[in-house]
């Protein structure tokens, strides 16, 4: 798609909501910050965590796939999220999905590894600010206290009435990534903006 991206501009699932997210961020006076991080490269990687491919892929990406459930590992521009005992979501900068897929397939060789480009399957919402926890607690049943969900944690769970992948970013102040299926993104943005009413 690289060649066509120049001629046909990309539209993200929340492109229509950008202004409302920015307004909420502005009027909250720093309490919360909401923004879409569009077009991140996302690859669903399936392999045997105990097999040879796991190490090879880790070396090729310069990032060890996390084996501890519900944790994330970050190295450089790449983040690997644990989704299951043999499943990860690899998140990288926009446009890097082809290259990442090639590197993984090459590293895996003949091992049984599945790689699926899911960059457009979900979009990413950034939820940060001192009230980020409070905002998410309106709809997320998980314990998001830093003791329970500190940096390096991720989880697949529900927020409002939709499923999300929730990632605690490196520093507590950096807040969360909320990855949501693109078709639900409009609903979730509306939900977050409504839940933020008291903070803006």
């Amino acid at each position: 798609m690289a060649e066509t991206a120049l001629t046909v501009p990309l539209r993200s699932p929340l492109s229509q909501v950008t202004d409302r997210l920015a307004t909420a961020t502005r009027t909250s006076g720093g309490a919360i910050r909401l923004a879409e991080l569009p077009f991140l490269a996302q690859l669903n990687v399936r392999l045997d965590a105990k097999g040879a491919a796991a190490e090879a892929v880790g070396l090729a990406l310069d990032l060890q796939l996390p084996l501890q459930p519900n944790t994330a590992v970050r190295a450089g521009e790449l983040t690997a999220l644990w989704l299951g005992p043999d499943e990860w979501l690899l998140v990288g900068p926009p446009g890097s999905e082809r290259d990442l897929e090639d590197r993984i397939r090459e590293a895996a060789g003949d091992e049984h590894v599945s790689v699926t480009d899911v960059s457009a399957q979900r979009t990413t919402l950034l939820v940060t600010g001192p009230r980020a926890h409070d905002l998410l607690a309106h709809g997320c049943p998980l314990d998001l206290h830093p003791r329970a969900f500190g940096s390096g944690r991720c989880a697949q769970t529900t927020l409002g009435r939709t499923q999300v992948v929730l990632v605690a970013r490196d520093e507590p102040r950096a807040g969360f990534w909320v990855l949501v299926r693109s078709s639900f993104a409009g609903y979730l943005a509306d939900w977050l903006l409504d839940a933020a009413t008291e903070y803006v």
Partner: protein
Amino acid sequence: MLLIPCPWCGPRDEAEFHYGGQAHVPYPEDPASLSDEEWARYLFFRDNPKGPFAERWSHAAGCRRWFNAVRDTSTNEVLAVYRSGEERPATPEPRPVFSARPGVPPLGEFEDEAVQAEGGPGGAAPSGVEGAEPLQDGTGRGGGGAAPISGSAAGQPFRHATRGRIDRDTPLTFTFDGTEYRGFRGDTLASALLANGVIHTGTSIKLGRPRGIFSAGVEEPNAVIQIEEPFPEPMLPATTVELYDGLVATSLPGQGRLATSPDPARYDAVHAHCDLLIVGAGPAGLAAAAAAARSGARVILADDQPEPGGSLLGTAEHLDWVQDVTRQLDAAPEVRVLPRTTVFGYYDDNHLLAVERRTNHLGAAASENVSRERVWRIRARRVVLATGAHERSLAFADNDRPGVMLASSARTHVNRHGVLPGRHAVVFTTNDSAYAAALDLASAGLAITAIVDTRPEPGEWADRARAAGIEVLPGHAVTGTEGGDDRLTAVTVAPYGESAGQRQFAADLLLVSGGWNPVAHLFSQSGGKLRYDETLGSFVPDTCRQQVEVAGSASGVMDPATVLAQGAAAGARAVEAEGYTPETPRLPAVPAQPRPTPPMHVYVVPGDTDAPRFVDLQRDVTVDDLARATGAGLRSVEHTKRYTTAGTANDQGKTSGVLASGVVAELLGVDISALGTTTFRPPYTPVSFAALAGRDRGALSDPVRTTAIHEWHVAHGALFENVGQWKRPWYYPQDGEDMEAAVLRECRATRESVGFMDASTLGKIDVQGPDAGVFLDRLYTNMMSTLKVGMIRYGVMCRPDGMVFDDGTVIRVAQDRFLVTTTTGNAATVLDWMEEWLQTEWPELKVHCTSVTEQWATVALVGPKSREVLGSLAPRLAVANDDFPFMAWRETTVAGIAARVCRISFSGELAYEINVSPWQALALWEAVYEAGAPYGITPYGTETMHVLRAEKGYPIIGQDTDGTVTPQDLGMSWVVSKKKPDFIGKRSHARADTTRPDRKHLVGLLPEDPGTFLPEGTHLVADGVLPSPPVPMLGHVTSSYRSAALGRTFALALIKGGRDRIGERLYAPVGDQLVPVTVAGPVLYDPEGARRDG
């Protein structure tokens, strides 16, 4: 909400999981070798034991792994979880049952020595006696010496001059039953009415008897009112409504009235987690919080009042200690104090729900931004219930007049609200507690005419009352009352159990204390067991499996020092168990109390009377009503409750429940301990539906899923159809067209030239791995492994019972990679289905499935001119039929966008599906629209899609099928492989039931009048005259449309033996008519398929 421990992710809410039925029921190795009976046993028979049961669960909203759990089906406790493929472990023991009151002396032991709290000086004189030292160790605003009634408090004749915690600088105006009154901030509606001399607040529901304010809290049975302004709200106890300026309320004879306009307020919810939840901020709860506050543990203290203190606010004792602890709690970073918050439900795994009233008390001044009420969903490691006790009433003649009030409630009105509920009171008691109330009220200036005590020897408290100049009548009871509508005027008293020796006292207030009921509602909801406590004459918490302790009077302990010490110990134990170090909090010194005298257990006051003796005031249930119930043979309080409705009103029998048990026990001649209480169920107090709905209403009531092209559809006037949670364009009306006209136009344009639709919502699953072909062969009825790369095959999936479950196309992307499409509403189900088989039955298969539904957007380009349109947009694509045949796919560039184009058709026309990144889908759609303009390209919606496919006899799974239809029933035997040794559903296709000749087949129907439209769901019968019922039904209409191409109406129907009836005339009862119809083959348009290649 149960917590289910996922073997990978740990404990999560049960809502994240899907149930998968009994575990360890493997798919038979060779289904073909099984008899019908053996196969049916596998399909339909499962164990259903009481007790530990191994079952399968999927962490559907989490890691999507299937696992096994051993769950006790009688307690719902998950005893063990283990991974799929692992052996069932030995069943572990269930959680132990333990005492919820570790700090309480054993059964029935009466505490005849006042326990001294740590550091207490002891020996101080009790409060409430004129001229004596006040009880409290500080200077709370309440209490104090006798003070005259203030006649000048803004015309509030019953307002006390000094007492109360009201803010006298903030006067408020309110209206009740059309009369305007004044009150103060800090009043409840009830206390403000009392201050104005109004105690009569309505009439009873059945008998229309005048009723008055009976209590000072949530237990109120009588003073149930309707708020009219600022926003109508029905059935609120006036004792719980905080007064605000401009409040307009009316009395309610019975049912309330819901608002007719939408509630403009916001409501929301919060999930909270803590190490310790303390329910109740009275002495026990505050002591528990003080012990835990600085330990670092996460503590939530919830209390239904606007300020902490609980019963201490009502007695005006130890208020400076309350203030100290409150300050400590406010300063502790991990402690959250929730005032105005009622914990109303206690569920599995220490999940408790509470409702916080955030702006109700502000009236019209409430901010629009702040939710009016908030539901707290609290998951607590440990819980301390310090919920206090409710005073019990007594069943005596005419015990329902306005002016009859619980003794402690009168004291609360004085000390919290600065209101005297009357001028001259008689006190009627069976226990010591009313004496403290009487003495305190006397010191506040209320004339206590007499204390009537059923006990022959009331002991030291009576001595103290006499010393204060109050007449005590031991061994006496109230046998009747007199009064008008407004209020009580006199009380008749006689020696207990006798009719002779009556005396009458003039009084405008009768204060009653029949003993105390621990508020065990939440404990009981938690699964805790209650036991009868002989001392209290009531039921107290005993044992529980959950991590909960009960402290204070909720545990049955009434002595103040013990209450405090018990609370502190419970708080300390809880945080210690969670690994924190508690501290020993400072507790207030409790002065020595008079030596207690055991209470007497009285429920029905004996004596002949014609006057009603009310048990449940809110339901107007009397002793006689209960006698009728027992006379009718009812022997359980659960049955008498249902027979009489006692305890079923919106107060849920808080003052009457135990009383009713006592009355029924007496009537049956059994001990109340053997009878028990009725079940306590959530909510503890009524919770509004608006609060429970929170923000899940209106536009947010259910998620709306949209495609990348949604805005275009909106901008072009599409009406939408809900398919699952998707919003799909239904049709695009133009210039005032109705649906019929629009759909006929869209159909015609598509069949005659070219149309296009947004097909992005179809489910898409990427299936990868060397065994992908084998895997799909097992899932689909037809062969998929033989599909060539670059080609597409339609497939059908069945459940093991052989019934069609989903259909769609399968694209072979590479040797070891397929892309499967599912019906729009079924995408998640199909993926779960695949994972279930892979993880639980075929873990040896090297294949992975990943949802890519939103990774692709799909534009269906349909009609004889579609090739021209596509060709103009994809110059590098060879579009000729030979180059790009039916059921092939190509990767190319369409309108400059990388695309995968599939030549498939759901209409019988030449058609393509163009798949692109959703990030570029709108550009593609607009390019198609533009390129198609010369051909009059027409956007169409789901309705046109349905018509076009129905004309071709293509079924929609879920519309033309209902889980009882096989592929053969659909006339699709061609899609069922005869070569494959097995696939899911194959064995069932050979069952006697699925080979019956009279199974329902999918056929076409043509009404004889081509203009007659058959509603979907219409039944079909054989004869033109309806026989008498039961009428034999032959089947029903599953789809029905008007066809532009056929120039008539038509339908699809499932009809018994339908394929053998083609050409037959049947009848469809529509309203009063029997519409004649002709059975036809399902393919009504272009049956030879001539249009497919353009």
